[in-house]
């Protein structure tokens, strides 16, 4: 009987500690959204809400939990990173996500971007080429209850024809060219966003917009940036 009491007490203490920890992170999350995202000019409400609710610390290696809400990217292994929170928010806001959207993500990584999208849109399809990352991310997303995220372990070059066309495509890994199949799988009026820059210096994002046969790109600045040299 004594043993049982100790066990119950132990569970309660552990649960209490976990609750306290989560609660602690939720306040860090709110600070992150306020100081890193809103402060830099992102106003898209669904994005801000999603960033406030997704537990980022569950998407980073356990030894980096305490740094999960830092203003920077973090390594997740295999030479990959979980992007800076602001970049995730910026990319999400850049596609103007709506509830009924079907979004394709190329490069699942930790699964964090997919989780953020999943809070906003109805369907998220995410592809990861590195098997180990795919396994951990899909398990993590399943474990956290993100039921509208479907993962695939494949080469992102081909997109996901079965579920095409997509309202938006987010390519999270920098690419020196835009794979033609992705352009084809983008809906008319759809948007695609691709980062350019080293993992620790994502300074620009390329927004591709498709209007019928017309394709245009815009190089966006994710930092609130004043051009260095003004015209004279």
């Amino acid at each position, binding site marked *: 009987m004594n043993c049982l009491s100790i066990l119950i007490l132990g569970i309660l203490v552990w649960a209490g500690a976990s609750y306290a920890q989560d609660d602690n992170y939720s306040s860090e999350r709110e600070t992150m959204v306020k100081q890193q995202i809103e402060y830099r000019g992102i106003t898209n409400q669904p994005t801000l809400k999603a960033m406030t609710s997704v537990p980022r610390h569950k998407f980073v290696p356990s030894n980096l939990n305490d740094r999960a809400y830092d203003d920077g990217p973090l390594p997740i292994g295999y030479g990959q990173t979980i992007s800076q929170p602001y970049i995730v928010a910026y990319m999400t806001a850049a596609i103007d996500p709506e509830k009924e959207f079907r979004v394709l993500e190329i490069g699942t990584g930790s699964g964090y971007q997919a989780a953020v999208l999943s809070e906003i849109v109805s369907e998220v399809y995410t592809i990861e080429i590195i098997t180990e990352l795919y396994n951990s991310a899909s398990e993590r997303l399943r474990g956290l209850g993100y039921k509208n995220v479907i993962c695939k372990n494949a*080469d992102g*070059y081909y997109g996901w024809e079965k579920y095409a066309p997509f309202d938006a495509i987010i390519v999270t890994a920098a690419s020196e*060219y835009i794979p033609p199949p992705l352009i084809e799988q983008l809906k008319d009026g759809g948007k695609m966003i691709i980062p*350019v820059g080293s993992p620790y210096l994502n300074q620009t994002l390329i927004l*591709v917009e498709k209007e019928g046969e017309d*394709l245009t790109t815009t190089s966006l600045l994710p930092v609130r940036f004043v051009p260095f040299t003004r015209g004279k």
Partner: protein
Amino acid sequence: MTGEKTHLFKLSVSVAFISVSIIAFQLSLIQILSIVQWYHFAYMIISVALLGFGAAGTFISLFRISLLKNIGSLLPIFMLLSGLFMALSVSVSQSELFRFDSYKLFFDFSNVWQLVLSYIVFFLPFFFGALSIGLIFVKHVKNIGTLYFANMLGSGIGGLVAVMLMWFFMPEKLPAFISFLACFAGLLIIPRKLRSGFSIFISIVIAALVYLYINPGELHLSEYKPLSKTLNLPGSKIIMEESSPYGLIDVVQSSHIRYAPGLSIKFPGTVAVNNAVFNNGNWYGALIPFGKDSIDYFKHTTEYFPYLINKRKDVLILGAGTGRRITSAIKSNASTITAVEQNKAVTKLLMNELAGEVDSVFNRKEVRPQNISPRTYLLKTSAKFDLISLPVIGSFGGSSGLFALQEQYDLTKEAFSEMWGRLNNDGVITVSTWIDYPYRKPLKILSTVTEMLYDRGINNADDFIAAIKNWNTITYTIKRTPFKDEEIKIIRDFCNEMNFDPVILPGIKADEREKFNKLQDKSFYLLIDRILASPEEREKLYSEYPFNIKPAIDDKPYFSQFLRWKSISQLSEFFGNQSVPFFEVGYILLYLTFIQILIFALILIILPLIKIGWRGGRKNWALIYFSGLGTGYMFIEIIFIQRFTLYFGNVIYAAAAVVSLMLISSGFGSLVSQKLQAKPNRLVGIIFLIIISLIIYTIFLSSLLKTTIIFTLPVKIIFTTLLIAPPAFIMGMPFPLGLRLLSELNESADGGQVPWAWGINGLFSVISVVLATIIAIEMGFVWVMIFAAGAYFSAMIICFKRN
């Protein structure tokens, strides 16, 4: 031979062998660290490890009496330990506990601990090797001329041995192999009476070396290196691996590598899968078969338009790499293609074992491969071309400034001027670069070509330059004659077809620049216009812009060095402190290295003073004299490497030849100095000669090399020997003479200054290597030469005073 002479001979041979092993180990370590990390981290780690030389001087100063008392047994032990630590360096540094990732250093401080451990691992072989040399010098200071000769000769040979061995040994095996030389040096000098006592120790060490040679440990590349990332892709594997002094070449087979830089988003086809080549774990190039459709994407890139506006019969491809642009030229009906590529090892593979992978493109009759640096080829050739093509500048997504310290002679103003001189009447130079942000590379390229044209009397550069961009690249084409209306029309039509935008084109309208690919930060166009506007406007922009976008010149050939100290706070404000190091890791590391070694060096210089006293005993003289010699010698060595790299067209062989030639010549100088009396006035005279030769070389060397660059290789080698050997011979004298003088002057005092002075010389040699790079970047190579003369001058003045 008398007993004493035999002993001296044995000691000299031993010193020569330990010196061979130390230098060869140093070079093999640079190669290993360049593979697992990046070159500049190798530079930082080895600079700290080389402080082992200075630390040995400090150690001898502190424990001189007891060390000298037991020198017979200690010398072989130190040499054997040096060998053992060399052999252990790979397996220990690559173990889980010691392995660090340089990329994480700036945001994960737990890596610093591993970095410190790595410093210690690499420090020990140098420390014990230097300790044995230093002890021999101190004990036999009267014969320093002969022993220093052995030291210099061994070091000179060590450089050549290392380069040669790199052709035959895989990098991880090399330190263990070299360690046998260090052990041999130790075995040579075991006193007869101690041989039986040593036998167990020797057996253990040799058994360990054999074991470590067979099982050297695996090299673990940083997970952020392109090779590691590629091997993470399912099914990717290394199908060929070759070692060479140019680096470790890996050929990777993968069903996921698709190389199509700058592809138009209108490209309708499929980007084919290619195998790829990596050098030291870095991307080198895709193996694109000639016959496949894979190359058709080329016609959908900004690089294609020079072929569109005119026929290009004679094409010069600079930095041909794996031959992608050769294939493009053949597909565009070029009749002769000169492919210049410095990396002989890769070209050899592409012409033989890998010929099938690229459909023997390098072996085709219209292709003329040249294994030489592009710049040297331009200086040598008298041929004219319709098109001169440069490789895409930088790597996609930025290299985080890893090339900031790399001398890029192909991208200097003088290089573009030579290219211009090699063009036919309607010929063009074409160069593409990624559009980085904040804007740097596209601006620097434009400022370089604009200034080149201006220097040639062309004030209306925008009539000679066309630039088009897509979403991530910009291609500049510089034409020998102004662009004609029909050519301008072709460019416009091509842009419309491919979703590209003209950025510079005669008669361009503002809205044309943003038809398909918009930039949120439109200052790009304004900056471009300011560069083209006038020399005054350019100069104004150079001083205002937070990055260095002034053209690189031969005296400061650092094209990829953009960061300026005055802008760091501004950049931190915009991008955050964490991001700033990644703008230019190389540049930041250079200063970090300098600060580290300066702190360590000061500690190691000051520490012996506790033992030998702070005042008197000619310490000021020793400090100024030996620091001056260390600094001056290394500065000159670096200048010679820089000058002769262009001359020979091959950085590896030029560096090995220059360093070896200098050290061996200095060794002979030292040997001759043994017969001279160590008097201050003699030192003044010798150093005066060095300064005079430096002044002569500062004035005449560059032009002398430029006029003789067309000579055949054997003539060049003889000429180089004639140029380097005489000053290096004289430069070998002041150090042994100075040590002898110090020893004689201190005989009546405490006598402990010889190891201290030797340590100072070693420490300043290490500091000088880093300092020379800083001076070259900030002020130019001419200043390195001037400072070298200054360092020798200070040594001369202090001798003059002594006199």
